[in-house]
């Protein structure tokens, strides 16, 4: 899996998160913005780059073609990868919790 030094890129993580519910391209962009509470505004070039790679790596799949719009959803392998990344990130946050306590 082409990831940034073993971890997922932020864009990959949020796209997988958004695709826990089947969505088409534009809806994924909106979902990413909502999930990140407006922090992540994903450009369309980044979105399609991520979709192409995730589909090739079988972490997402084409659910249906709604007119010209394609609806994607996460695969079981994608869900495993997402959970693993979530655990890793959570552990990283937990490891740094003392930083918040000292404020």
């Amino acid at each position, binding site marked *: 899996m082409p990831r940034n030094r073993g971890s997922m890129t932020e864009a990959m993580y949020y796209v997988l998160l958004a695709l826990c519910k089947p969505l088409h391209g534009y809806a994924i*962009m909106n979902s990413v913005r909502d999930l990140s509470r407006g922090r992540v505004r994903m*450009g369309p*070039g980044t979105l399609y780059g991520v979709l192409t790679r995730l589909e090739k790596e079988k972490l997402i799949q084409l659910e249906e073609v709604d007119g*010209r*719009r394609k609806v994607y959803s996460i695969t079981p392998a994608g869900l495993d990868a997402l959970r693993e990344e979530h655990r890793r990130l959570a552990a990283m946050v937990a490891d740094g919790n003392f930083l918040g306590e000292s404020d």
Partner: protein
Amino acid sequence: MTDGKNSRKFWWLDEWQIEETESWLSDMAVQGWHLLNAGKSFALFVQGPSKKVRYRCDIFAPRHSQYQERLELYQASGWEYIGRRGKLHIFRAPDDSSIPELHTDPVEQSYIIAGLVRRLATNCFLAIAGLAIPAVILLLFYERLLLDILVDGNTPFLMALPLYLFVMFLNFRGLILNGRLYSRLRRGRFPVRNKPYQKSVRLTKVVAVLALIVFALLFSERAITAINLFTTEPYPPVPPGPLPVVRLADIESGAELVPAILPGFDPNIVNHYKTGRSILVPRQWHLKEDVSVPGREWPSGLEYSPSLEVHGYQARSEWVARQLSQALVKIDWSKSHPERSQLNPEYSSYFDALWVKRDNHYTSFVARKGVYVFQLSYRGLEPSEELLALTEIKVQELARK
């Protein structure tokens, strides 16, 4: 933006010069020229008010299943699709921060550039292989290659070389530029905005003009040779009087020489004199003579009939002359008589290089002095030393002119 006047500009930037292309198009917009259509070789601009706009390029396959949906999403995000050059799609958006960049994650973008780098690396490898394989085959199996290049001017292979090298230059530069862009993106940095492109355009123009000049020179050389082949006599008669090369009248001085004629053939087929030229060897002479000398006999008692064939060359430089003389020796002699490809300075100290082979009544040599090279074959009763002495005189006369 459609009622202004149009202007067509050649793409001096390659389609893989992404950052430079974006800068150039943005600069053109500031000057009031807005991209209307992106062709393969020319960009069409329309004149309008000066505007600060962002141009962005993205790489994706036009036949991909997501293609239409992708273009629509880009437009819905505020990016107007202008056109494409191959896989490079060009978009435009106002210089307004409410419209996000096409690529908001440099590391993600690096995966796209990695694909381009792989493609360019493959192109470079194929380009090198495409050049090296025919070159090796020619060098191994076509002995006359060097002689063809030096004497006949060029080969089609050589003629295509400048254009081929220009394409290689573009590919290698693309590989280096995109390799740098890839490293930048992997470090989490965005592509350079407003990247200077003028130097790169100048370099492309210089290399392109050089390649075209070399190609035109080689092509005209070939064209002149082809025209000459059809317009000049195949066997021009030997003119009277002294020639730049040794002739039988110089060797058999005073004797009456009666040219031989082969019945049924061109009367000059065994007695002719031609001149030629090429870029590297601008003066060339070829003399062929076959005569009989009434009243004189071979030791066997038959009528004396000497023959002579001389190729004379004046090369552009001493280095070229050296290559030419070695190629002549290698092709004509080395295979049948390897021992005869050794230098024979004992025959004459005048020449810079001399190869002589001598049998009964037969002398053949390749001699080089400075930029002059002579290849001579003589069947007759005069000694080799005499032929070399006469050639020495010819070289001195040529050098004086």
